[in-house]
């Protein structure tokens, strides 16, 4: 039963390293290919995966950002992007505002780069187990103590969040108003944050001692408990990510040198 994990899907079984290579490939391809079809394909695949992986709850929060970006980008860039020239054709008008085709193109350029990336990276990174990631980091040569700091951050957040809820309730039980007007709510901040901070610093002293007894400072070579299990798709996925990155960069260079014509449906 040691190291029992959920390996029910390909995404969950992939090693963090393979996912990081894949992420790199996606980043380069979305920046350099500048292809509308490709951007939409990445969004579609990501969303299907998110639904299959049942991550939709958290994705809703990201959707809010995506919608804000949509409104701001097309609203601002569409009407006053820096590349709009006088006399550019107007695509459409809303409330006396002219949306220029060049402006829309500017918005497309950034929106269709950022949003597919947000969706794809969301899928990839949320499926990475933090402990597995830490093992990968150690193997990549990042010092043990740095990796510890990274992993511990997630744990401290969980702990402090629990404490914060207790503290908030304890202060409300002494009459702290957390629901009044803006000024009252601002004033309620201090009685909650002070015990959160004081508590965590009090605990540091004990934790440092506890870690000392567990040999955190011992000078011997540190070893790792976890091993990332081999999985048949690890190498192909990593190779695909690297190939995608190399292909995208080469493509962009060739286009810039005018050796080849850009693909159809290129984002301007």
């Amino acid at each position, binding site marked *: 039963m040691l190291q029992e994990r959920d390996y029910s899907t390909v995404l969950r079984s992939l090693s963090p390293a393979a996912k990081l290579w894949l992420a790199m490939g996606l980043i380069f391809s979305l920046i350099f290919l500048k292809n509308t079809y490709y951007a939409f394909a990445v969004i579609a695949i990501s969303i299907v995966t998110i639904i299959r992986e049942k991550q939709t709850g958290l994705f809703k929060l990201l959707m809010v950002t995506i919608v804000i970006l949509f409104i701001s980008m097309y609203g601002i860039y569409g009407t006053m992007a820096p590349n709009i020239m006088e006399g550019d054709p107007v695509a459409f008008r809303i409330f006396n505002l002219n949306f220029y085709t060049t402006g829309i193109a500017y918005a497309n350029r950034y929106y269709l780069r950022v949003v597919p990336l947000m969706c794809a990276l969301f899928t990839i990174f949320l499926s990475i187990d933090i402990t597995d990631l830490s093992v990968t980091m150690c193997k990549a040569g990042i010092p043990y103590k740095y990796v510890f700091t990274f992993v511990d951050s997630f744990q401290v957040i969980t702990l402090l969040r629990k404490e914060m809820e207790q*503290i908030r*309730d*304890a202060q409300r039980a002494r009459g702290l108003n957390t629901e009044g007007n803006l000024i009252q709510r601002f004033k309620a901040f201090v009685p909650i944050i002070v015990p959160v901070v004081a508590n965590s610093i*009090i605990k540091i002293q004990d934790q440092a001692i506890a870690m000392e007894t567990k040999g955190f400072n011992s000078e011997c070579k540190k070893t790792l408990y976890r091993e990332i299990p081999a999985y048949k798709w690890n190498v192909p996925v990593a190779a695909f990510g690297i190939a995608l990155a190399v292909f995208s960069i080469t493509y962009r260079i060739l286009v810039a040198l005018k050796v080849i014509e850009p693909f159809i449906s290129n984002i301007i």
Partner: protein
Amino acid sequence: MSETVIRTENLVHVYPRGEVKALKGVNLEIKKDDVVSIIGQNGSGKTTLVRHFNGLLKPTSGKVYLFDEDTEGQSVAEMSRRCGYVFQNPNHQIFTTKVIEELEVGPRNFNFTAAEMKESIERVVELMDLKDILEQHPMTLDYTTKKIVTIASVLAFKPEVLILDEPTGGLDEVGRQMLTRIINMMHDEGHTVIMISHDMDYVAENSSRVIVMCQGEVLDDNVPEKIFLNSEVLEKAQVEPPQITQLDLFLSAGKNEETILSVEKFINKYNAKRGGNN
């Protein structure tokens, strides 16, 4: 018949992300001069129950009445004013730099006048012997003193009901004696004390009524003398009576005329028996 302070009707609570009912229809009535102890394992619903008394939790269904008023729509502040709640960990409460300021937090939040505040703080300082540490930084105090300060900071706004969550946890003997003094004082002034505790010795000696909870239900609700005799209920709730009670139960082999809850009573009982025998 004394006045009812808290009454719950079919109180049900389900936590937002939980599927299990944390409280499954609790009906309770707490009287004015009760010193109530609520016992049971973690997860039995004790804390969930009492957090309805000061509004930190709202019923999923059912009613909570505080001094015969329906608490629906009342704010935490309104309810806490009358129903003071001392949390288990004193570090969760302290945020000022002087003990005296810590005591002033509650009265200030509840808009006491300067005179009222002075009077009420002087009273708790006197009662709890805090005079020497008023200017100290509360975060530098030892655990027992910190805990006493947090109880004082709640008493400072003169609640009519005092709820203590695990008051004896981490307290030494000195602290326990101070706690008993506070409970007695509240009781003498006609106020209500409700405590959640795992400390059966303390519960047996210091409460007038014990409520046993298990899996969101009240298993039993009676005077401690009866509760600690009811082995069936205790077993179900997985709590053990105090050692002295167990000893007395063993010696009297079930034929008990009176439940022994403290060493003092035990000594009196058996000394008297010897006397009678001679």
